[in-house]
């Protein structure tokens, strides 16, 4: 990736207003999200106990978070006992320093990477580049994004905004060994990536990954993937460095029986993803380092409503059903975490200090489709509403809300206001003047009745 999202200008309404003008983007997103929705619905429908799995997944994550300190210590002990090394990082800068130091200690200047949200979040590739280390993304979609000098726009499929013809163009322009007669057949594009990365896999001595799950009880890390680039990176290099958010821990090995059913079906809409790798400490003689990353997670954990966002297993089902995401695309969210989950995770991880981050809780119609499909039952609308209350509001809006609160909080004041409105009903304008017209142009003012319900009830009752 050429740049990180941190400090991206703009706000969600502006970004999305631009994005919806891009008809190619809207077409690509609609096609892709509708394909995956159908697949997910069909494989989820196959399991008679989906809701029971979902309830268990939610509770296992809540239990983990409730005793996160204990489970992290247990994990550290198990990984260390199995020959691995555990490092702790308070923030992005600290994590990047640790990884750069570990890579330099091997004497290598190149690393291969498995797709990882945590390393994107901390801008690891850029930090390594600043230290003279080149990071090569090996996931096909990440490769498309990296070669295209682009930003990821989806958690699972970072290049979802690109169609096959655009991907072909990027490969022909930027991949030095792309075959000249490359077609836009997905199989041909995948083959070109296979050939391009083959030598790199066999040559690389250091790999960087994330992990989907870490098991406290056994010290086992788990990575789910499709292409085999994960297996290549996790298996062949002599040194493996995994950067993982502290919330990814699960208490017991048995808990995997729940998440290995929830994640693939929610994510790619398959009964099982092609490859899942698990390893404990130093597997087959590998030098293994685990970097545990906080980077704002303990702030999220401290929020009683918002902490449920830490249950997220990054499946992206909420993106695929979201009417807002489908039209605005992932870039509008200005974060590696787009869509509904991004709208609640980003403002909590980064705070709402920037205009962009303060606008994210409004990037939703609150329709609730995201909550319905979430495999760990994160009530995204609930968190959005809570964040809206916490977001900064303008002086005029705060004054207006104070007046409304004063009126609505008292029966007599409300009745007086309603009677006044009834008397003035002929004079209420349909359209407000000046900048206020932006409000009335997109809303219908309800008709004010001749008599309020309260007055009618008093008269008739």
């Amino acid at each position, binding site marked *: 990736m050429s740049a990180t999202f941190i400090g991206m200008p703009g706000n969600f309404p502006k970004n999305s207003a631009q994005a919806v003008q891009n008809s190619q983007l809207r077409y690509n997103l609609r096609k892709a999200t509708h394909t995956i929705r159908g697949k997910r619905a069909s494989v989820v429908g196959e399991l008679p106990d989906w809701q029971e799995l979902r309830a268990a997944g939610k509770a296992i994550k809540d239990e983990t978070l409730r005793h996160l300190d204990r489970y992290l210590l247990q994990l550290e002990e198990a990984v260390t006992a199995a020959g691995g090394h555990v490092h702790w990082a308070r923030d992005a800068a600290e994590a990047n320093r640790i990884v750069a130091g570990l890579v330099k200690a091997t004497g290598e200047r190149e690393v291969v990477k498995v797709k990882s949200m945590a390393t994107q979040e901390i801008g690891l590739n850029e930090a390594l580049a600043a230290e003279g280390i080149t990071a090569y993304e090996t996931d096909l979609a990440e490769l498309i994004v990296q070669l295209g000098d682009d930003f990821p726009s989806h958690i699972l499929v970072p290049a979802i905004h690109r169609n096959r013809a655009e991907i072909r163009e990027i490969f022909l322009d930027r991949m030095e060994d792309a075959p000249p007669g490359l077609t836009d057949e997905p199989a041909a594009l995948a083959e070109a990536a296979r050939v391009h990365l083959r030598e790199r896999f066999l040559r690389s001595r250091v790999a960087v990954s994330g992990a989907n799950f870490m098991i406290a009880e056994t010290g086992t890390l788990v990575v789910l993937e499709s292409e085999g680039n994960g297996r290549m990176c996790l298996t062949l290099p002599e040194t493996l460095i995994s950067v993982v958010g502290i919330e990814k821990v699960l208490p017991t090995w048995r808990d995997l*029986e729940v998440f290995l059913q929830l994640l693939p079906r929610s994510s790619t809409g398959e009964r*099982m993803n092609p490859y899942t790798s698990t390893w404990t400490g130093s597997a087959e003689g590998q030098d293994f380092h685990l970097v545990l990353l906080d980077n704002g997670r303990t702030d999220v954990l401290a929020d009683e409503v918002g902490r449920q966002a830490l249950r997220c297993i990054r499946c992206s089902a909420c993106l695929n059903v979201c009417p807002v995401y489908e039209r605005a695309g992932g870039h509008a969210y200005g974060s590696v975490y787009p869509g509904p989950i991004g709208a609640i995770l980003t403002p909590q991880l980064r705070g709402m200090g920037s205009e962009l981050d303060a606008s994210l809780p409004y990037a939703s119609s609150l329709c609730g489709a995201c909550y319905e499909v979430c495999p760990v039952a994160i009530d995204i609308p609930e968190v959005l509403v809570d964040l809206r209350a916490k977001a900064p509001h303008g002086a005029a809006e705060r004054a207006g809300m104070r007046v409304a609160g004063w009126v609505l909080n008292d029966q007599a004041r409300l009745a007086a206001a309603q009677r006044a409105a009834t008397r003035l009903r002929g004079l209420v304008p349909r359209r407000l003047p000046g900048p206020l017209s932006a409000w009335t142009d997109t809303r219908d003012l309800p008709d004010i009745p001749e008599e309020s319900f309260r007055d009618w009830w008093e008269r008739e009752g």
Partner: protein
Amino acid sequence: MSRSAREDILARISRAVDGAPEVEIPRRYRATARVDDLVGLFTERVGDYRAIVHVVPEAEVPARIAGIVAGRRMVVPDGLPAEWTPPDASDAGPADPYTADGVITGCAVAIAETGTIVLDTGPGQGSRAQTLVPDYHLCVVRADQIVAGVPEAVSRLDPIRPLTWISGPSATSDIELNRVEGVHGPRTLEVLVAVS
């Protein structure tokens, strides 16, 4: 003297969750799935991933293997049962995975509902590199290794061993979210289910 990152993070966590309610984990999902025909469901689901799958009587497995791998230089991992070892492989010794045409293995467990085979690097299953680098993987699954669902498989496996769960050939959904088989892992997966 400032505190270490580890102490800092642990202290922040304990402050953050102070007073949060305790959690009960309801495990009302199926611990064992009811499947009448394990072999039938497993082969159907493996086939859905566009892997090649055959059901073969145990006694005929050696001949089928010999026929399938004829003309291919196969990696033969340590501990592969002698009767599964291709006839011309024994004197040449195990082939180098980087130049071999394919690899032949057994497995640790297989899952009917998801069409998954799991390798744990045990006898006859090879190292992780041996089953990854060659472009072709032939896996022999004994019918009694097939369990119905994911929970049964998890309970049979040893987390200390490095595990590889394989569901079909290498694939990607990165182009327009359509599944395409064949990226970095073996592009062809062939499964022989040995039934008695």
